[in-house]
C-alpha cells in the first residue's frame, strides 16, 4: 500500500465523516435538549441540498455558489422553526413514540412535497470551476472540494464547541441537556430554547445537505438513507453527546471506506455490526449516559385515564365471532381481487397485533420486526425451494426459526429501554437485511427467491388441501391467522399479559412484586417474534416470491403505523389499522402517486388529534351505547365490591 493510495483513502474517509458529523451533530443536539429522536432530520438535510440546487440555477459563479451554500441552511432553519412551533410543541408531554411518529410523518410529507416541487429524478448540483479541480497530495489525486469539506467540518465543530462552552446560551443548552427539570425550575424559557435548538440543529442538517449536494446527487428520499446512517453515528457515540457524534462520525466514515475496499460485499453489514457490538458492550453508546427515566407526572396519562378502566368490560361473544363468520362468507360474493386484498390484510394484522404485544402491552418499541417477518418468509422460501420440504412443515418451522432469532436478538435488546431499545432492534434488523441482501449464494441476494412452489398439504390419506387458488389460500390464511390472533388475545388477557402491562406502567414497581422484568420482556419479545415469523411464512406462501425489501427497516415501520392508526392500547386496534393501511396503500397507489403524502398527513392528524387511535376513540365515546346494546358488559366482581 503506497502513500498516495493511503492519502486518497484517508481523505475520502474524512470527507464521509465530515458529512456525517454535520448531520448527526444537529441530531444529537436536538435529542439532548428536546429528548426527541428527529426522524425528519434527514429530510431537512435533503431540503438543504435542494435549496442549493434551486439557488444555483439562478446564481452562477463562485459567489453565487457561496451564497447558495450559506442561504440554504437558513431556509431549512425557517422550515424547522415552523415545524417546531406549529407541530412538535403540541406533543412534548406525550410518550416518545408519538414524537418519533410525528417526525416520521414529516419525512413522508416532505419527501413527497419535494417530489412535487423538484421532480422525482436525481439532480446533480454543478460546482463552480475553482472547486471542481483536484490537487496532487503525496502523489494522490484529491478533489479540491473534498479538501474544502474536510477543512470546513472541523471548523464547524470548533464553532459548535465555542457556542456551547463559551457563550451564555450555550451554557443554558448544556444545562438543559443534562437536567431538564432543573433548568425549567431555574426559570429558563424552555419553549424559546427548544425552538432555537431545533432550528440550529436544522441549520447543521441543512449545511450538511448543502455541502454534500454537489458531490452526491439529491433526490426525494435521499434523507431516509442519510438518517439511518446518522442514527447509527449518534447511537454509537451516545445519544445527546456532541463528542460522541464526532467520534461516531469518524468511526463510521472510516469503516465505510475500509469496508468498500476490503469487504465490498458486506460494507453495509459492517456498520450495523459495529453498532450492535458497541451497544452490547456499552448500552448507552461510547460517550452516553443512561437517560433519566421520566417522572410519571411528566408523561401524559390522559389516555385510558377514563373514570372506568376498559379492562372491566368484556365484549359480547357475538360481537367477537360475527366478523369471523362474515369473513368466512366473503368468497361467496367477493372476487379474487378482494380475496387477495383481505389475505394481505390478515397477514398484516397478525404482524401488527404481534408487534403491539410489545408496544401497547409491554411498552417496548421494536423497530426491527421486519427482521422476524423476513426470517419467517425466508425460512418458508428456502425450505420449499431448496430443501424440498412440504408446505406445512415449512410453515410450522417459520415461527420456530423466527423465535430462535428473536431469542438471540432479544437477549441483548431487553437490557435497554426506550429509544435505545428501538435503535438496537433497528440495528439488528438492518444487519439481517444487509446479510440477506448480499448473500447471493444462500438467500439469492437482492434477487430474492422467485417461484416458490406451494405443494398441496396432504391430510393423512384423506386427500390433500390444494392452496393453488386464491380462494383456498384465503381460507388457509384466515384459519391460521384466526387461531394465532385468538392465542395472542389470550396472552394479552392472561395473568402473563397483566404482568406485562404492569411492567409497561412501572417496571420498578413490577420488580418489587417479585417479577423478573428482563425475563418477561425477553419472553414477550420471543413470542412476538414467533408470530411475526409466522406472518412472514404466510406471506411467502401467498406471494410465492420474496425479496430482501421485506426485511428493510421501512417494513418495520408498517406495524407501527397500523398500531397507531388503530389504537395502541386496544387489542383490535392494530388489525383495524392494518385494514386502513392496506386499503389506503392499494387504492391510493392506484389513484395517486402521492401515497406517502396522504399517509403522512393521516399519521400527523392521528398523532395530534386522536392519539388513542380509531378503536381507542370509539371505545371511549361509545362505551355507554355499546353497554345499552349489550355488546359489552361489565364483569362480575362488582357485586361483592359494592356491597
Amino acid at each position: 500500500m503506497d502513500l498516495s493510495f493511503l492519502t486518497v483513502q484517508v481523505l475520502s474517509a474524512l470527507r464521509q465523516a465530515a458529512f456525517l458529523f454535520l448531520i448527526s451533530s444537529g441530531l444529537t443536539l436536538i435529542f439532548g435538549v428536546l429528548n426527541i429522536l428527529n426522524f425528519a432530520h434527514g429530510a431537512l438535510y435533503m431540503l438543504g441540498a435542494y435549496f442549493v440546487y434551486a439557488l444555483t440555477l439562478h446564481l452562477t459563479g463562485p459567489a453565487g455558489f457561496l451564497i447558495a451554500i450559506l442561504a440554504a441552511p437558513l431556509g431549512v432553519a425557517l422550515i424547522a422553526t415552523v415545524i417546531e412551533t406549529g407541530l412538535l410543541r403540541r406533543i412534548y408531554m406525550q410518550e416518545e413514540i408519538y414524537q418519533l411518529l410525528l417526525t416520521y410523518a414529516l419525512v413522508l410529507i416532505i419527501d413527497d412535497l419535494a417530489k412535487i416541487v423538484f421532480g422525482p429524478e436525481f439532480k446533480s448540483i454543478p460546482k463552480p470551476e475553482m472547486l471542481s479541480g483536484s490537487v496532487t497530495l503525496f502523489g494522490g489525486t484529491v478533489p479540491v472540494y473534498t479538501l474544502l469539506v474536510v477543512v470546513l467540518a472541523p471548523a464547524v465543530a470548533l464553532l459548535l464547541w465555542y457556542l456551547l462552552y463559551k457563550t451564555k446560551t450555550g451554557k443554558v443548552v448544556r444545562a438543559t441537556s443534562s437536567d431538564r427539570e432543573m433548568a425549567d425550575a431555574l426559570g429558563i424559557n424552555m419553549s424559546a430554547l427548544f425552538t432555537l435548538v431545533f432550528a440550529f440543529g436544522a441549520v447543521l442538517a441543512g449545511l450538511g445537505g448543502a455541502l454534500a449536494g454537489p458531490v452526491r446527487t439529491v433526490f426525494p428520499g435521499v434523507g431516509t438513507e442519510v438518517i439511518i446512517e446518522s442514527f447509527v453515528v449518534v447511537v454509537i457515540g451516545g445519544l445527546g453527546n456532541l463528542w460522541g457524534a464526532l467520534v461516531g462520525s469518524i468511526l463510521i466514515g472510516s469503516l465505510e471506506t475500509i469496508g468498500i475496499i476490503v469487504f465490498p460485499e458486506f460494507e453495509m453489514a459492517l456498520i450495523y455490526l459495529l453498532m450492535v457490538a458497541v451497544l452490547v458492550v456499552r448500552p448507552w453508546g461510547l460517550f452516553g449516559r443512561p437517560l433519566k427515566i421520566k417522572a410519571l407526572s411528566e408523561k401524559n396519562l390522559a389516555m385510558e385515564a377514563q373514570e372506568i378502566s376498559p379492562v372491566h368490560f368484556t365484549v359480547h361473544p357475538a360481537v367477537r365471532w360475527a366478523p369471523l363468520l362474515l369473513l368466512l362468507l366473503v368468497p361467496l360474493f367477493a372476487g379474487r381481487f378482494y380475496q387477495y386484498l383481505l389475505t394481505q390484510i390478515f397477514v398484516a394484522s397478525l404482524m401488527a397485533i404481534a408487534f403491539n404485544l410489545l408496544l401497547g402491552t409491554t411498552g417496548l418499541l421494536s423497530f426491527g420486526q421486519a427482521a422476524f417477518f423476513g426470517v419467517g418468509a425466508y425460512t418458508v422460501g428456502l425450505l420449499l425451494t431448496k430443501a424440498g420440504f412440504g408446505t406445512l412443515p415449512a410453515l410450522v418451522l417459520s415461527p420456530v426459526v423466527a423465535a430462535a432469532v428473536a431469542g438471540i436478538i432479544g437477549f441483548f435488546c431487553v437490557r435497554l429501554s426506550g429509544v435505545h431499545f428501538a435503535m438496537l432492534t433497528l440495528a439488528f434488523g438492518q444487519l439481517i437485511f444487509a446479510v440477506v441482501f448480499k448473500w447471493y449464494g444462500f438467500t439469492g441476494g437482492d434477487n430474492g427467491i422467485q417461484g416458490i412452489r406451494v405443494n398441496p398439504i396432504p391430510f393423512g390419506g384423506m386427500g390433500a388441501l390444494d392452496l393453488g387458488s386464491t380462494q383456498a389460500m384465503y381460507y388457509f390464511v384466515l384459519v391460521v391467522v384466526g387461531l394465532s390472533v385468538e392465542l395472542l388475545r389470550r396472552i394479552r388477557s392472561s395473568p402473563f399479559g397483566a404482568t406485562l402491562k404492569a411492567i409497561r406502567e412501572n417496571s420498578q414497581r413490577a420488580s418489587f412484586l417479585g417479577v423478573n422484568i428482563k425475563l418477561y420482556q425477553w419472553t414477550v419479545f420471543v413470542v412476538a417474534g414467533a408470530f411475526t415469523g409466522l406472518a412472514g411464512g404466510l406471506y411467502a406462501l401467498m406471494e410465492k416470491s420474496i425479496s430482501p425489501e421485506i426485511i428493510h427497516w421501512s417494513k418495520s415501520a408498517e406495524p407501527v403505523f397500523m398500531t397507531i392508526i388503530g389504537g395502541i392500547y386496544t387489542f383490535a386496534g392494530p388489525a383495524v389499522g392494518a385494514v386502513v393501511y392496506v386499503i389506503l396503500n392499494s387504492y391510493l397507489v392506484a389513484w395517486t402517486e402521492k401515497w406517502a403524502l396522504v399517509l403522512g398527513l393521516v399519521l400527523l392528524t392521528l398523532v395530534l388529534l386522536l392519539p388513542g387511535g380509531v378503536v381507542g376513540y370509539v371505545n371511549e365515546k361509545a362505551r355507554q351505547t355499546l353497554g345499552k346494546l349489550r355488546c359489552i358488559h361489565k364483569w362480575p366482581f362488582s357485586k361483592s365490591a359494592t356491597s
Partner: protein
Amino acid sequence: MAILEVRNIVKSFGGLRALQDVTLSVEKGEIRAVIGPNGAGKSTLFNVMTGLLAPDSGNVVFDGEQIIGMPPHRIIRKGIGRSFQITNIFPRMSVFENVQVALFSHHGKSRNPLHLARKFTEIGEETIAILEQVGLAGKYDMSASILSHGDQKRLEIAISLASRPKLLMLDEPTAGMSRFESRETVSLLQRISREQGLTLIFTEHDMDIVFAISEKIMVLQQGAVIADGTPAEIKANPEVRKAYLGEEITES
C-alpha cells in the same frame, strides 16, 4: 425473635459515606421508625435492604437468611414488601388490576399465558378483600391514575400487602398527604400490623406520627446511628435533641 438483622452496613458514594456501620435489629410484629434529617441515609438504607444498592460491607439477614447480593425480585419473594416515597403504582391500570397483578405474582401465576385473568375467581375475591381492607373496594374499576393522592398511597399499600409480606418497608407513607389523609393512613397501618402480625419499618418526617405509632425508633445522622430505642428513650436522649430534634419535641 428478630425477623430482620442489619449488621454493620457501610455504603459510600465516591467520597461520601452514606451509611457508616449501621446495625439494626427488628422483632417480629414490631413497628419501627427510622428517622433523621434529610440526607441522613434513610432511603439508602432501605435501598440496601431491598437489593437496589449493594453495600460496601455488612450483612442483612431476613428471617434467618442472608439476603445481601440477591436481586430485588428475589428479596421480595422472601417476604419483604416495599412502598416508595414517590407514589409508585401502575397508573393506567384499574385499581383492581393493580392489586390483582401483585397477587398473580405472589401465587406464582404470572407466567400463565393462556388462561384469561378474570377467570381466576379466587384471586379476584382475594383482590377485593385486600381492597376492602384499605377502603378502596368501591373504586375497583377506576383507573389508578385518577385517584386522589391519598387513595393512590393506599393503593400502593394494598399492592405491597398483596405479596403477603412478613415485613413491610414504607418510605414516608404519608408524604404529601393532608392531615386527615395521614391520620387515616396511620390507623390503617396500625390496624394491619395488629391484625396480621406484620412487621413495619418506616421513615417519616412528621414527628407526631412517628411517636404515635412506633414501638421503637432508630435515629440516623450523616449515615450513622446516633440513637435506637423506645419513643420515651428517644425523647429523653440529649444527643438526639441536640443533633436532630432541636427543641421541637416538648413533652405533651
